[in-house]
């Protein structure tokens, strides 16, 4: 279970404080995969980082009693001057996973070929995403935080991701940010709507989509 209690978060910008969350409460039960929805710039990625523990809230408490992944995206987490393999080795170490097995799994899953031994800075964003996705699949998380990476890669890689998640659906959930409603619906049953600093949970993702559409019009 993941719970946010009276969480506030804001950023200082040139024209005042941009509020992401204002005294927001949220309880995410186990066994539900959840889509995070909200307009561009509402702070979906920030919320994902707060859930992960990558970013601290200004006020409030976040409690987690599941093994949660880092926010999987094509952006951070990798050291550009080290190879994909060296980065995988690092991630396996900090999660206490078996280094050899993790490397074998990622080499097979991410399909990077000779690029696996090249510095990550030479990767395309699709390749980075495949690497991030591959490592996270090699480590057994109970909850995967996914920030816009399932949309990358070709159709065959996408179906591979889907199959990998399908296979562990019984023991792992997904919390996902994506701009594609179709992707969200294919992974998630439930949704959280982030609007004006507050969070509302919808058990059924269709209700969230409807409410979101109404808010926009």
């Amino acid at each position, binding site marked *: 279970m993941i719970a946010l209690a009276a969480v506030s978060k804001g950023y200082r910008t040139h024209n005042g404080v941009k509020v992401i969350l204002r005294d927001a409460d949220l309880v995410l039960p186990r066994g539900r995969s959840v889509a995070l929805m909200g307009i561009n710039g509402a702070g979906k990625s920030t919320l994902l*980082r707060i859930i*992960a*523990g*990558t*970013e*601290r809230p*200004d006020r409030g408490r976040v409690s987690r*009693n599941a*093994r*949660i992944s*880092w*926010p999987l995206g094509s*952006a*951070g*987490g*990798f*050291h*550009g*001057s*080290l190879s994909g393999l*060296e980065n995988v080795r*690092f*991630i396996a*170490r*900090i*999660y*206490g996973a078996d280094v050899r097995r993790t490397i074998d799994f990622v080499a097979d899953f991410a399909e990077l070929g000779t690029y696996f031994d090249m510095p990550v800075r030479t990767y395309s964003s699709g390749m980075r995403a495949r690497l991030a996705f591959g490592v996270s699949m090699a480590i057994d998380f109970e909850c995967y935080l996914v920030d816009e990476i399932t949309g990358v890669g070709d159709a065959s890689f996408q179906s591979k991701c889907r199959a990998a998640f399908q296979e562990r659906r019984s023991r792992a959930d997904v919390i996902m940010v994506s701009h594609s409603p179709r992707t969200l619906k294919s992974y998630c049953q439930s949704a959280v709507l982030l609007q004006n600093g507050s969070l509302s949970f919808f058990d059924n993702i269709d209700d969230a989509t409807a409410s979101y559409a109404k808010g926009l019009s």
Partner: protein
Amino acid sequence: MTPPAHVVMARVVLAVLLRETRTRFGRYQFGYLWAFLEPLTHVAVFIAVFTALGRTTPIGNSLALFLITGVVPWLVFTHTVNRVAKAVDGNRALLMFPQVTRIDLMLARIILEAATASVVFAVLCLLVRLFETRFTIERPLDVVAVFACLIVLGAGTGIATGVISSVFPTFERLFAAIRRPLYFASGVFFIADTLPPEARALISYNPLAHLIEWLRSAFFVGFESTFVDRRYAVACALIAVLFGLAAERAIRPAEKFA
């Protein structure tokens, strides 16, 4: 479930340490050799200058050893400051992982600098002993204490520099500018007793000068520095690390990841 916090921290520091070893030495040809070549270059230049001026070592009977006991502590201090100050910037991407903290990144670099310093100093002393002059170290435990102080002083100064530069980016430049004259005021190539009283009073504020004199008093049989104030040196090191950690603590809530 999630393992205890100290286990996670140990894992993270070890993992960062291993990758830092690669990035610190792996990028250039000669890798590890460079750690020895740098102090040797300084020593060689001073030996050339001393010889040209017709001067010999003020203490002991090996000029090389006298210079090594000045150059190595200086480099240990400045490298620790630089590496620790840039620990967070150089590894910002890793903060994406929730269990990786800024302190882990700095601690890994501190450990790596301490290990490198010990190996470099031991090897250079061994080289002198094998190929130049036989010597015995008068108080080996004091030598260890001096290096511990150098690391703590460097770490504290580095943490503080890193934190202050993240708020005022010009601070790093300022510190770099102070460092150059500091080289000449730390006793790298002289002892305080040979200085005029005014200069001696001036460098007595410099904890590095005390640490280098302390090292030489401990190292060379028969040399007791009248200048060294051990308590002042230790106090400076502790104050630096406390100030650095306090500054880090005060800034951190605002930017774990930014």
